């Protein structure tokens, strides 16, 4: 075989999680980072608002509060040991990023600046607390750049524009991955002792989404096909504020800086739903509030959107009503210039895509598909676990959005994902290197590429009756409408049928491009296959969970049901059939109680 590469550790994905893992793994073992995009194109770069850590640079804050907020945010589905682990590591993780040169915004004292974010509170007073460390409204961009730069500094080996298609298992252990080099169309086998998946989420299965084209659930689908389980796939987060129709995200930071939601009648409606923290309630709560307003006819012009208002005069007016103050106790005020300085990209998006200037006009927004809470089950060291007893799969690791630790449970708090990337990316990298230094290479199977090749061949053989683009659009629509913010038995059953039908039709798709060089048609079709796979699993898991919790909210079962459903879903694909099982939630300090904001 011509294209075989041997590395101790192979990292799949070069977003925040992959780069952090690559950086740490490469210090202890020979490491390669493989990515289907140039690393700096990864979706981490789109993250806007910030990364949370209880630095307390403005006011008192502690990791315990951060832990509790996260547990509460997760609607008690998050594993509390893992959450505690993450929030305790948070401070060092953020400081480490600073030491790597990340240009955080600064306080007047020269320390890292922080802003309030949904669900982050002072546990004593219940008031929002400034916990999100930020670099303007492009924190993720800065993290991505900084980590990539540090990888270059440390001579990490990159394979840019290689798409991983298959995961190799030998003797029940990880043995490597197979990837296609986009520029040549050649298959490459990466022989490895340890493999870390950090491929990001799958938000592209929804019509209105803040997610990148690359978010097609590759990692999850590849492992699913190889018989590994996925966890909590029914939990998907809808962010309350996406640009109307386009889904482009308007960060929660806008509300952190004092922006408020306004319905079609010109009323501020969040106090009705979350009397204490109002517009800064947790995302699932705000998304549902917006939907309720729209459904009860209070959308703007009877359409399915509302307004987000960050005009300085409105901010000052509502801040005064809320009694919000500056750190020194004076009433909170803001000017147009300050808004522009703190949220330059958001202002830019609105001007470009909507022709709306947020400093003088309100922004039309609607909830948008945003974050994958579920994913590849791991423990807090990033080791992939494969059953309810947390049995470790030797040599396989996962981190970032594609993984489910689970620290986000049923609903992720804003800014906790970036934290998740750096904390668990780092530990996955460390563990993988440690493992690789003890383990031996498994012998590669004779035809390692066979699995990958046959997947591609199937896509060449279809009758060509069906069009992939149309299938993709139909899937997105049905998933957004029926497996979106509000779900019901009937809607989801219809959706499942539809998705299965689409899967069937997908076998009739034929890729017309027969070339090898940048055959993006082939790759897109393969990705559509992954999306359909994931969409089906999500729908099945969601149908199965008969309660409402966090991001999963059912009209037919509107209450949380801790007696029957305080457990993680595990799902396998066995001989084409979906198998669902459960795993207990780790509860240490915080017993479930009703969640009010």
């Amino acid at each position, binding site marked *: 075989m011509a294209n075989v590469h041997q590395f101790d550790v192979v990292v799949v994905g070069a977003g925040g999680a992959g780069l952090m893992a690559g950086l740490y793994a490469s210090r202890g073992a020979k490491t390669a980072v493989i990515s289907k*995009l140039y690393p700096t*194109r990864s979706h981490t770069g789109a993250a806007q608002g910030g990364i949370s850590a209880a630095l307390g640079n403005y006011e008192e804050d502690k990791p315990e509060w951060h832990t509790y907020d996260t547990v509460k945010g997760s609607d008690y589905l998050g594993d509390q040991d893992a959450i505690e682990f993450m929030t305790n590591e948070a401070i060092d993780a953020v400081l480490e990023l600073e*030491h790597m040169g990340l240009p955080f915004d600064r*306080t007047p004292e020269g320390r890292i600046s922080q802003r309030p974010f949904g669900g982050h509170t002072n546990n004593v007073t219940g008031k929002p607390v400034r916990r999100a460390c930020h670099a303007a409204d492009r924190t993720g961009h800065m993290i991505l750049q900084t980590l990539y*730069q540090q990888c270059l500094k440390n001579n990490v080996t990159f394979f840019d524009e290689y798409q991983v298609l298959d995961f190799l298992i030998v003797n029940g252990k990880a043995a490597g991955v197979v990837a296609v080099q986009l*520029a040549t169309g050649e298959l490459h086998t990466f022989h490895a002792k340890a493999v870390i998946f950090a491929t990001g989420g799958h938000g592209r299965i929804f019509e209105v989404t803040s997610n990148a084209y690359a978010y097609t659930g590759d990692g999850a689908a590849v492992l699913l096909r190889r018989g590994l389980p996925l966890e909590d796939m029914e939990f998907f987060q809808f962010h309350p504020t996406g640009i109307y129709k386009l889904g482009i995200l308007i960060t929660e930071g806008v509300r952190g800086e004092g922006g408020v939601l306004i319905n079609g009648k010109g009323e501020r409606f969040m106090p009705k739903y979350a009397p204490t923290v109002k517009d800064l309630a947790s995302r699932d709560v705000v998304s549902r509030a917006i939907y309720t307003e729209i459904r009860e006819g209070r959308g703007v012009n009877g359409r399915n959107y509302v307004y987000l208002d960050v005009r300085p005069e409105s901010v000052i007016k509502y801040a005064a009503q809320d009694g919000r103050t500056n750190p020194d106790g004076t009433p909170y005020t803001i000017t147009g210039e300050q808004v522009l300085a703190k949220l330059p*990209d958001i202002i830019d998006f609105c001007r470009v895509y909507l022709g709306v200037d947020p400093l003088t006009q309100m922004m039309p927004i609607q909830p948008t598909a945003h974050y994958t809470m579920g994913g590849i089950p791991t423990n807090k060291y990033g080791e992939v676990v494969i059953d309810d007893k947390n049995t470790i799969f030797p040599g396989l690791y996962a981190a970032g959005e594609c993984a489910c630790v689970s620290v986000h449970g049923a609903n992720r708090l804003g800014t906790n994902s970036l934290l998740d990337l750096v904390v668990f990316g780092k530990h996955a990298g460390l563990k993988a290197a440690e493992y690789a230094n003890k383990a031996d290479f498994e012998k590669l199977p004779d035809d390692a590429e066979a699995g990958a090749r046959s997947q591609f061949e199937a896509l060449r053989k279809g009758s060509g009756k069906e069009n992939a683009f149309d299938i993709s659009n139909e899937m997105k629509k049905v998933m957004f409408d029926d497996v979106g913010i509000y779900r019901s038995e009937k809607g989801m059953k219809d959706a499942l049928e539809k998705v299965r039908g689409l899967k069937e039709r997908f076998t009739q798709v034929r890729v017309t491009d027969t070339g090898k060089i940048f055959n993006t*048609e082939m790759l897109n079709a393969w990705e559509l296959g992954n999306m359909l796979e994931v969409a089906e699993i999500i729908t099945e898991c969601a149908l199965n969970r008969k309660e409402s919790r966090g991001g999963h909210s059912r009209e037919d079962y509107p209450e949380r049901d801790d007696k029957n459903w305080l457990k993680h879903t595990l799902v396998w694909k066995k001989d084409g059939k979906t198998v669902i099982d459960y795993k207990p939630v780790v509860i240490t300090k915080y017993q479930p109680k009703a969640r009010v904001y």
Partner: protein
Amino acid sequence: MQVTLKIFRYNPEVDKKWHYETYDLDVDEKERILDLLELVKGHHDGTLSFRRSCAHGVCGSDAMRINGRNMLACKTLVRDVGDKITVEPLLGLKVIKDLIVDMEPFFDNYKKVLPYFINESPLPADGKERLQSPEQRARFDETTKCILCAACTTSCPSFWASDDYLGPAALVTAHRFIFDSRDEAASERLHIVSETSGLARCHTVFNCTMACPREIQITKAIGELKMATLTGKVD
């Protein structure tokens, strides 16, 4: 509205020479050029190839020439360019297929300017962050915005003349570190950017600044670098 989309096409495995292909589409004026390309790929010709990811101008995948000027396809709306649209690959980089160009020389130049934070001094005794005033932070804010889309570098006549020229993007990166009060390798970087194929090749053409989708004042940043080599002032 009815638009005519003319696309540069080149498939190395079939074509000897590149050509243009024209598509008539019915689209909304608020659609992105990227949406149009997706539509062509989905319904007219699946072989059309281009890079894209974020679809809202933050990842830097889809810089290309639209009506003769470098832009991001996902940040340009139909109403910004009218109903006659021509899409071509970036200039000065080798075309691999259709709108996809070989980005390696671009990233090679980026890597030349030590594009990473360097500070080998001990950390503050309390183990916390290195201090930096908001003013010091603001000094290099502009150049931290770069998404490495290459729109600037491939609009620069000096880069067209030779890809040896570091190009505006690499210089922007150098600026980001040289003017960061915490960084300690300003001198090394200034030596690199003042080499023959560095600052001296910039003739204040401003194509870069006009092309930058992140609205970075690139020419100004380069100007500051030039003055820094002469005066030694880096704060």
